[in-house]
């Protein structure tokens, strides 16, 4: 006896031709228009109130223990300097990036990176920086600062970093 079954279904062929999307932001030092403005330079020739100024003269990052988002004394000191700098340049806004070392899963580390960024943001708010100048993003373990599978690299990668917008 013959049984006939008719099954119909779809197979689809996907042609990858996705639209473009914005690349990394261009440097923050781009020309800001033709108006006459004066620009301050710090003693080592870096433009004051810029990302470079923050990195070189203040410090842009803090570090964490494994699987922790607690701010140690060193991190708190660092953030006090950042808060003072933020008060000096009141038009500056920051994105706080949270990162992790490679010793965890993607999903857990994304959550942990967010907590680190948030811990930094909240501490800065506690020091008087207004919340509307601070946003956060977590990259989990996807963007290590230092490469290598060693404690030396991991300790540099468990971090939160202030990026001037």
């Amino acid at each position, binding site marked *: 006896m013959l049984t006939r079954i008719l099954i119909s279904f779809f197979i*689809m062929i996907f042609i990858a031709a996705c639209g473009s999307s914005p690349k990394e932001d261009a440097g923050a030092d781009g020309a800001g228009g033709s108006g006459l403005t004066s620009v301050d330079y710090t003693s080592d020739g870096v433009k004051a109130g810029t990302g470079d100024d923050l990195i070189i003269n203040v410090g842009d990052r803090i570090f964490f223990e494994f699987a922790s988002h607690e701010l140690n004394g060193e991190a708190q000191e660092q953030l006090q300097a950042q808060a003072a700098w933020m008060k000096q340049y009141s038009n500056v806004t920051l994105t706080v990036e949270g990162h992790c070392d490679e010793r965890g899963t*993607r999903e857990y580390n994304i959550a942990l990176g967010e907590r680190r960024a948030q811990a930094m943001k909240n501490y800065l708010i506690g020091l008087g920086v207004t919340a509307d100048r601070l946003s956060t993003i977590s990259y989990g373990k996807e963007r290590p600062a230092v490469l290598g599978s060693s404690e030396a690299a991991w300790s540099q990668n468990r971090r939160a970093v202030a990026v001037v917008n």
Partner: protein
Amino acid sequence: MKNLFLLFFLTVVFLKAGFLHSEELEIGISQGNIKPTPIAVTDFFAENLKSKKFGKDISNVISNNLERSGLFKIINKKSYIQDSESLNNQPRFEDWKLIKAQHLVSGNIIIKGDTIEVEFRLYDILTQKQITGKRYETGKSNWRRVSHIISDEIFERITGDTGFFDTRIVYVAESGPVGKKQKRLAIMDQDQSNHRFLTDGSYMVLTPRFSPTSQKITYMSYINKQPRVFILDIETGQQEIVGDFPGMTFAPRFSPDGKKIIMSYSDPDVGNSEIYTMELSTRSVERITNNPGIDVSPSFSPDGSKIVFNSDRGTRQHLYVMDYNGKNLKRISKGVGSYFTPVWSPRGDKIAFTKLENRQFYIGIMDIDGKNERMIAEEYHVEGPTWAPNGAYLMYYKQSKTFVDSEGKVKSGGESKLFMVDTTGHREREIVTPLEGSDPAWSPLLH
């Protein structure tokens, strides 16, 4: 984006054997490391010379599938005594017994214009009986798909378990230097054919997962530097953000009925991840957890009544089970070490997970109450298990240690690769991808 739709009409005819159906031979994949069954898979017979290539290709796809399962040993074609043409009339069982085949797959094909008729028969050599036989009629270009369907049929009749060959894998294809890898979605058949990219790499994507009921994928995307959960319809190419959340959403999975997304959401005012569900039709959002610890990586039980997830609310990261509404919460992981990414098996009786203990990562399986924990894969880094739809295999990815020189430049390592293994932890094999691969997700059976 452009898409081609191809309607695939498949006619299936059951072929009657001249004998009574033989009883199914129980092997049972979950019973440990059994010896692979020797099986002969002949080139499918074709009168027409041009069709002969198809006969060979179909046979090869079936052989590779069965071999990949670890449960079959394909007997070398060179030792076959009876040729395909004579086999097409009636197998000489003595010939196949002589080369120690337990089973024999034969078939023939007829190509008429754009359609192909594929007929296959599966025999048990010892009892000299036909176990099953079917004829499929479909578009010529679907020959590979039919080969997978036949493979599933053979697997099912011999092992008593449903197959996993007519399935696809979505994963994150990685390229570029360690630490700055481009991560894009890619999809391929379970046997790595028909590979194609689903996103262009201009933004990072992570953790894709299939819908159990439709050709959709949910995943996390960093498009416009706004990390959020999206759904991609792989038929239309349409991408859609899941919900309107002011903060980061991540770690998504579909509910078993395909109607909800379960995921983690980090409220920007709180900065802590909680588990939420969103009903896709009404967009209604429900918060399931409420705890100062991180709650992440939720996965529904197949009946939708329970959720397993990962939390660091205790001293370390552990696995917890709760009802769909957050009630009756219990920690299930009991060992030392940290536990991550639990995934409920499609059979409902096991949970696969990632574990970190003494600086070593593992993929493990435990009962749903946390008992009978055992490790099935181990590496410097391994994570992200995904179940085959029959619950008998797992896929995951490994990342090798990164070695750097004195200037911090990468000398070697840091590579991500996909692997699959059966649930006994035996017969692990690499799933080779064109680029590096991570975060694999197995589709349900397509037929």
